[in-house]
């Protein structure tokens, strides 16, 4: 069928891209999506767990307070929000005792706004 690889394409895929036993590497997978509040959508088999190289979204978290360079697609507002929160976390990481954010924002609180 047209959607699948032609024999030539299959040969190239098998030679250049397919992960083989002899490569001694595991097939990369994305981390599973765990929801605390609703039942987990996908169960991964034990075998899959062992044979996969699970990519990490948090391993380089301390790098995430800066926006990485982009090319054809600029960063989204969600992404700028993410990196700015990561920067705030980085600044607060070394705080001892009082929380600077609380000290800064508390004076602006009007109780009638929240009761």
């Amino acid at each position: 069928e047209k959607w699948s690889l032609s024999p030539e394409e299959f040969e190239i895929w098998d030679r250049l891209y397919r992960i083989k036993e002899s490569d001694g590497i595991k097939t990369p997978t994305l981390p599973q999506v765990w929801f605390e509040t609703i039942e987990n959508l996908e169960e991964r088999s034990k075998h899959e767990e062992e044979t996969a190289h699970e990519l990490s979204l948090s391993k380089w978290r301390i790098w995430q307070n800066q926006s990485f360079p982009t090319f054809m697609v600029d960063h989204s507002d969600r992404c700028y929000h993410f990196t700015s929160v990561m920067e705030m976390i980085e600044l607060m990481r070394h705080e001892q005792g009082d929380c600077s954010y609380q000290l800064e924002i508390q004076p602006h609180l009007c109780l009638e706004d929240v009761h």
Partner: protein
Amino acid sequence: QRLKAAVHYTAGCLCREVAEDKKMEFSKQTIAALSEITFRQ
């Protein structure tokens, strides 16, 4: 699996274009990871 192989092959070809453009090489794992991410996307 055939569909994943088609995605993997196409991701590999696109990576090769970027590799030639930037004079870099992509490891097999990187192309496999990019293919898996694309499939999930």
